[in-house]
């Protein structure tokens, strides 16, 4: 079959690879009908997440049709249409039973390594590092789904691929980011990053009743897209984020802050981010934490920082004393996708929200490597790329 394969830093190719096969009774194979490129894929593209290996198949946002099931699979049948969550779930371990699906204790087949690196293992993830199991991803014609009974979301016939696809990652990710904020009716929620995750977080915060949402980015078309939902916007290259946020909150600061940017924060003119960039350039540090620092500084005392943005390793110069004295709450994590998807599927079906608004580019899979460039370079007003095998 054909797949997008990671060969090294900034080197992804459309290659021919062996078809996946059932390896375990609990596996299923799906024929991928749609997949997408995520902001997390860009961190892998840039090799900021350790333990990728040449030959790894990319992709963790995908959906399709079941074409084969193992003998132990009871909840899926051939021909069914499913979205695959990016987290692999056994549905039996203690964490899965608590709904902490991104922390499944059984699905990471490199558990021993992950236990060493993280203290305790996290779930197996598709198309991600070998620290999370090194499972082949879904930017491919076919995908093997381990623990298939726990690792799928059934798609109602009434939804198109475009409407359903993001149930596997960015929609629940933006939703969880907003839920973690415990939004009250009087809250101002500030969202850093107007990428796909930020866009979903903005809409989730509005649905959950925020009084005002403010989105921060530097890309006009993305800010326009956030404004289309009813968000105020700040262009961080044109205005001071801290000043504007204080202005918009009568000097109080936002009650809740969401970091939908992660470890590749951009802010050319601030000394701290120039230092971070220098460290990345000389490969002496991995993460650029400008957004985290800005959130801690500007957030209202007693507020919450919700962090869906991905960080990978050691983060330098976090003003923890400031956070402690202001009594801030930090909530973060890879998304517990299936904890939210029944509710979110219903919301899409009822027409409360249609996540396909975010798709700006739809191409065939063979165009994928070029689309990584377009998405990374933010060219052609690209916000979200969907690929069709």
């Amino acid at each position: 079959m054909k797949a997008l394969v990671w060969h090294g830093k900034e080197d992804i190719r459309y290659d021919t690879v062996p078809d996946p096969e059932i390896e375990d009774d609990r596996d299923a194979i799906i024929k991928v009908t749609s997949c997408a490129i995520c902001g997390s894929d860009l961190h892998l593209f840039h090799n900021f997440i350790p333990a990728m290996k040449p030959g790894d198949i990319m992709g963790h946002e995908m959906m399709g049709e079941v074409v084969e099931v193992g003998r132990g699979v009871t909840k899926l049948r051939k021909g069914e249409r499913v979205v695959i969550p990016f987290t692999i779930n056994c549905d039996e371990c203690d964490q899965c039973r608590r709904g902490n699906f991104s922390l499944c204790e059984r699905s990471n087949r490199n558990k021993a390594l992950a236990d060493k690196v993280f203290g305790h293992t996290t779930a197996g993830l598709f198309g991600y590092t070998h620290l999370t199991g090194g499972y082949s991803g879904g930017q491919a014609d076919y995908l093997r789904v381990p623990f298939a009974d726990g690792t799928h979301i059934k798609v109602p016939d009434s939804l198109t691929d475009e409407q359903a696809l993001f149930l596997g990652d960015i929609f629940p990710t933006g939703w969880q980011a907003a839920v973690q904020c415990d939004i009250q009716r009087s809250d101002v929620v500030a969202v850093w990053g107007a990428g796909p995750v930020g866009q979903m977080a903005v809409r989730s915060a509005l649905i959950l009743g925020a009084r005002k949402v403010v989105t921060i980015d530097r890309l006009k078309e993305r800010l326009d897209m956030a404004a289309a939902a009813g968000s105020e916007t700040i262009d961080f290259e044109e205005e001071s984020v801290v000043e504007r946020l204080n202005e918009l909150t009568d000097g109080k600061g936002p009650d809740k802050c969401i970091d939908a940017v992660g470890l590749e924060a951009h802010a050319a003119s601030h000394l701290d981010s120039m230092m971070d960039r220098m460290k990345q350039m000389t490969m002496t540090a991995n993460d650029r934490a400008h957004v985290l620092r800005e959130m801690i500084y500007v957030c209202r005392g007693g507020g919450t920082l919700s962090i869906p943005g991905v960080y990978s390793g050691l983060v330098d110069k976090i003003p923890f004393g400031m956070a402690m004295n202001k009594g801030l709450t930090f909530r973060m994590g890879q998304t517990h996708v299936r904890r939210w998807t029944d509710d979110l599927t219903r919301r899409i079906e009822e027409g409360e929200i249609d996540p396909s608004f975010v798709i700006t580019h739809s191409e065939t899979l063979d165009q994928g490597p070029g689309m990584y460039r377009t998405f990374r370079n933010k060219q052609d007003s690209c916000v979200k790329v969907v690929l069709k095998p």
Partner: protein
Amino acid sequence: MNAATLSGGPADRSMTWSLRAARLMGWASFGLAVAFVAAPGRIARTFGLEGKENLIRSFGAQEAMAGISVLSTEVTPAMWSRAAGDVIHIGTLATGLRTDDSRQHRNVVVGLAALAGFLLVDSLIAAKLGSERTRSRGEARDYSGRSGFPKGRPSAASASAAERQQARQPAMAAG
């Protein structure tokens, strides 16, 4: 023209020619670094730079840094700084023109020509990388119609307390 061709390179490979060329120059930097550190005396004698061995050695460190940064994600500024390094090398090598030794003189001329070639190639790669990564290709598109709310924007009042509670504690699917 589709979006992929827009960003300059084959669509089925993410690496453009200019990025591959930059990587090559990055590895060349490591090669030069080794030469500068391992054989500064020989280099000095070849080009009439006797007495500048320590300077040549320090170029080794500079080239190693250039190599590392070209291989990082900040490849465009790294290629420009490589080009700046070429200029410094040209300046240093040019002092060798004062030599009386005709063999050394010839070596210096050849070396200068080679360095000028490097400078040209480094600058071309840097310029190409810069242009294929700028955003300004294609008009900014209008997304003001993409609210994502088919039934209109939610109002703060429409999210009932009960619904927020449900969102916080959904029924677990597991078990």
